[in-house]
């Protein structure tokens, strides 16, 4: 491939336009148009790829619906009740509120597919609870919220996994299942870190909830706790497609917030609808850019060239996975996650397939990488959001996030080396991979 080929020029242009500050979706569309122009192809193809791609890829519709479900959960009092429920059970231990933060993230992860939505939804509440009366250092509380939010899209449902399914044709249902054990593993490692720090730094204990209050608190949180059951039950019983399950989850959140908890006004409902549509449009632009750019990449045969190159190196599957981890973690320090998933990952997939790597294993590993990227400086979206919510300097937040980051690296290493950690549950439920 010569440096003056249309493809090289297009890549350089896309990179330059993105660095100059153009939205990434526009940068990719513009760069792809430039490619079509230089290669003497019909420039209408750009529109064709975007419009047909968006019209025929039915699974992308899960993205706006999962975003809507998360927004609807955040406006109701579901989070409130969930926090009280978690506090009743784990608040009594040393470092209780920190454990509450982790436990509520795990339960929330079973309903929401976006780490950003999780942090934005419960972040403020958790931060206030943890820093009231100087119980915990604000930077520690914020670091913990950022780290626990990361679990959200690893435990199903998961917007990044829907995007991976879109670029890889792997089954969403099995990808979701594959995330369960790694997600719990990460939560467990966080609980251990908090447990050790609680003793060493003498974290406060919450006043224990009397046993006779437990049934009442559980009852009030029960409809919320049933949400993961409705959602995942729908998918795995085969009753609904994952996309329909997303709609069902949004409907369920709406019904219990409006009818049962009576906590949502029309204004709030409209605001949630509009916010979700805005986010969908923003991600949609990235998907549009990726559709036309991936078309260019495919006609240039790049994924297969890469496959040929890497097979010539006689790379072992494990070696390839380690390389992918390093690449994605480095990219995660500088790029937004959706961009990595939609542009970089499709180029790697054919090589992974040629090496016989299971797509569910690969997908879960990729998503864990993307999620870690949300808390790695300099560009970590969750870090930015939590410095905003907690009003702490980024430097302090990064320092307190480090122990959790090491734990996540360790979890990532484990699931990279032992595919069974990912594949055990899907196989138990019928996955033949």
């Amino acid at each position, binding site marked *: 491939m010569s440096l003056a080929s249309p493809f090289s020029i297009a890549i350089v242009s896309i990179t330059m336009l993105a660095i100059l500050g153009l939205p990434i979706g*526009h940068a990719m569309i513009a760069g792809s148009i430039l490619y079509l122009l230089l290669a003497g192809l019909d420039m*209408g193809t750009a529109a064709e790829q975007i419009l047909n791609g968006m019209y025929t890829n039915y699974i992308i519709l899960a993205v706006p619906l999962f975003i809507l479900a998360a927004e609807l959960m955040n406006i109701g009092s579901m989070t409130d009740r969930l926090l009280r429920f978690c506090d009743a059970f784990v608040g009594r231990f040393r470092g209780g509120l920190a454990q509450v933060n982790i436990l509520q993230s795990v339960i929330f992860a079973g309903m929401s597919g976006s780490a950003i939505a999780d942090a934005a939804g419960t972040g403020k509440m958790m931060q206030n609870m943890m820093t009231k009366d100087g119980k915990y250092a604000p930077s520690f509380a914020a670091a913990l919220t950022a780290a626990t939010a990361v679990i959200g899209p690893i435990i199903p449902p998961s917007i990044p996994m829907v995007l991976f399914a879109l670029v890889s044709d792997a089954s969403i249902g099995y990808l979701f299942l594959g995330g369960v054990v790694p997600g719990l593993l990460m939560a467990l490692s966080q609980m251990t870190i908090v447990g050790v720090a609680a003793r060493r730094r003498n974290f406060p204990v919450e006043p224990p909830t009397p046993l006779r209050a437990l049934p009442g608190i559980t009852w009030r949180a029960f409809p919320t706790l049933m949400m993961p059951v409705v959602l995942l039950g729908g998918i795995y019983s085969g009753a609904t497609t994952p996309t329909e399950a997303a709609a069902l989850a949004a409907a369920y959140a709406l019904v219990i917030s409006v009818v049962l908890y009576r906590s949502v006004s029309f204004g709030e409902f409209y605001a949630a609808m*509009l916010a979700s*549509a805005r986010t*969908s449009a923003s991600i949609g632009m990235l998907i549009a850019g990726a559709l036309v750019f991936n078309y260019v990449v495919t006609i240039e045969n790049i994924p297969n060239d890469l496959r040929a190159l890497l097979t010539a190196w006689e790379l072992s599957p494990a070696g390839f996975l380690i390389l992918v981890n390093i690449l994605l973690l480095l990219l995660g320090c500088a790029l937004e996650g959706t961009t990595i998933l939609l542009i970089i990952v499709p180029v790697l997939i054919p090589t992974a397939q040629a090496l016989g790597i299971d797509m569910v294993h690969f997908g879960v590993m990729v998503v864990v990488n993307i999620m870690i990227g949300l808390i790695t400086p300099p*560009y970590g*979206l969750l870090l930015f959001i939590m410095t*905003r919510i907690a009003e702490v300097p980024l430097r302090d937040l990064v320092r307190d996030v480090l122990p959790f980051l090491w734990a996540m690296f360790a979890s990532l290493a484990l699931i990279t080396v032992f595919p069974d950690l990912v594949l055990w549950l899907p196989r138990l439920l019928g996955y033949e991979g």
Partner: protein
Amino acid sequence: MKQKIPRIGGWLYRRAENVLAAMLAAMFAAFLLQIAFRYLLNLPIGWTSEVSAILWIWMVLWGAALVLREEEEIRFDLVYAVAGARVRRVMFLVAAGALLALYAVSFPAVFDYVTFMKVESTAYLKIRLDWLFSIYLVFVVAVIARYLFLSWRALRGAAPGAGDPTQGRSGV
């Protein structure tokens, strides 16, 4: 007259927001209808998924063209955020120039593609695809207009904002 233009603009912007929110609400409703028909009435219907797919295209392109603010779009902000106001202005003008040139050059071909699609219709509702895809033309024209306006402002000395990643709308 001078105050009227921003006021009308603001009114139109809120209507564009209404339409965007309504499209998602309609997609949500279509899905619920589809589930209800299939499982409660045992009567699978196909047009709902067609409606959802159409609404998705319109929602994204309508939203990106008319509703999304500059700071809401996903970008690579590491370099942009540290650049000074003057450098940012130059960076913006170069990027906007490239975008305008490429979108404008490709517009005739895009127009041809969209109008050619009149030969096909959707499977259930028989909507002609040129109508369905016409939103793409709206999108391109709106993006060109927006970048012309922003470039004009940048040329007159107003540096574009430094960008705030927490305002970006990412779904991960």
